[in-house]
């Protein structure tokens, strides 16, 4: 049985997600920031954490974006294989939703059309960076992430010798966070993709950022690595906004995939404390 979904429904959903994601900090993120105050040792860091929490309140009450960088619109859409999209092309429908959400929501348009030359602003924040996945079932799940430039620009990828093991991963993640300093707006959420190919590793790192703070990978070994990485990163002393402190990351998520016998791909994709995501299911 094929289920029909109108392209316009997808457009409306994306537009709504763009506005909600940029104005309302998810509860898991807010709670994690609040909890960090209990363990934070630096008084200046605690003041900064308080301002971040107050900002979330002000944004909600006054309908102002949490951050002026309302990001690249990253959309991950899971389309059930029993769904048929009616009345338009899926990708066009998503971009139309971005156009509508960023326009009507008074969000910043931050997309430059020609990356290495004229860099003219497209004026409507399109095109989004869109990942599609065909999944079982007859639902459409839309994951929306307005991804800020400050943190995205601190992404790193490296392929290690296959026998390098866990220590190579921990060293690479710690070095990335150390070098990034205040640029990605700590406290951070850190996504790590290990295995696959270069693009697979980075896609996993990005996709892991849709997870809820405090969630752990179902594989015990991976979950343990997540705990280890979080502890190692928070020992670096970078702190909120890099002023020094014990809260450098709110969480670290790891996703893995089998890889080639010659390779150990490791990708790091960083999210700022304004860890904005929102999902809808049609």
């Amino acid at each position, binding site marked *: 049985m094929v289920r029909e979904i109108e392209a316009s429904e997808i457009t409306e959903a994306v537009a709504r997600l763009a506005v909600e994601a940029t104005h309302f900090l998810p509860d898991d993120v807010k709670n994690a920031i609040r909890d960090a105050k209990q363990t934070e040792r630096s008084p200046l860091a605690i003041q900064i954490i308080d301002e971040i929490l107050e900002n979330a309140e002000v944004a909600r009450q006054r309908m*102002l*974006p*949490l951050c002026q*960088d309302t990001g690249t619109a990253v959309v991950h859409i899971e389309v059930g294989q029993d769904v048929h999209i009616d009345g338009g092309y899926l990708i066009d429908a998503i971009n139309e939703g971005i156009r509508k959400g960023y326009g009507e929501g008074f969000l*910043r348009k*931050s997309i430059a059309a020609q990356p290495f030359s004229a860099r003219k*602003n497209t004026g409507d924040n399109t095109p989004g960076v869109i990942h599609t996945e065909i999944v079982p079932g007859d639902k459409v799940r839309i994951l929306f992430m307005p991804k800020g430039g400050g943190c995205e620009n601190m992404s790193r990828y490296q392929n290690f010798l296959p026998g390098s093991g866990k220590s190579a991963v921990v060293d690479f993640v710690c070095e990335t966070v*150390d070098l990034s300093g205040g640029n990605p707006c700590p406290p951070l959420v850190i996504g790590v993709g290990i295995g696959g190919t270069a693009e697979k590793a980075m896609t996993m790192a990005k996709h892991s950022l849709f997870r809820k703070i405090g969630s752990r990978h179902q594989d015990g070994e991976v979950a343990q690595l997540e705990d280890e990485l979080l502890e190692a990163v928070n020992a670096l*002393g970078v702190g909120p906004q*890099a002023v020094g402190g014990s809260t450098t990351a709110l969480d670290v998520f790891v996703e893995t995939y089998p890889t080639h016998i010659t390779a150990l791909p490791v990708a790091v994709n960083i999210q700022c404390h304004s860890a904005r995501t929102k999902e809808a299911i049609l």
Partner: protein
Amino acid sequence: MSDSTPVTTPLTDEVIDRLTIGTHVAFTGVIYTARDAAHKRLIELMKRGEKLPVDLRGQVIYYVGPTPPRPGAVIGSAGPTTSMRIDPYTKPILELGVKGIIGKGGRGPAVRAAIKEHHAVYCIAVGGTGALLNRHIKSAEVVAFEDLGTEAIRRLEVEGFPAIVVNDCKGGDLLESGKQQYRTSDRPIPAVRGL
């Protein structure tokens, strides 16, 4: 911020002397917005020996690209952007007489040295608090490069705009000392290269 130092713009040398690392500053007066694209244009004008659209001597530059205001509002969300991207343009801007900069994150070694040399100050506002910072901006007017949209140069009137001194005129660096103070890791601190 309860213990902040009120400062009015433009900045004088005497005021800059008092702004040591870790000081909470509350800026009141006029500040100018400029990001990478506006800096690039300013420097091109300087190179060609043309008149600049704004007199920046003694002024404070804020690295921000705000969201559009809702109808009737002065400005949208307006927090700082990453300062390091503006590192390659900062030395000539300081030579021009800019005395204060507000952004987020650290600066490379060359910029730190230039801040000391030109007796200026670099502060951070808390990144990702653009809704909160909005309250301190009383007026906003585009004064140059309107075609750059959010990246145009705006003249902002601010009241008690909060920032923290990161690089002072004596060469201090809050981020470096903060990291050392709170680091419990045995890992050596990698050198910040800057851009």
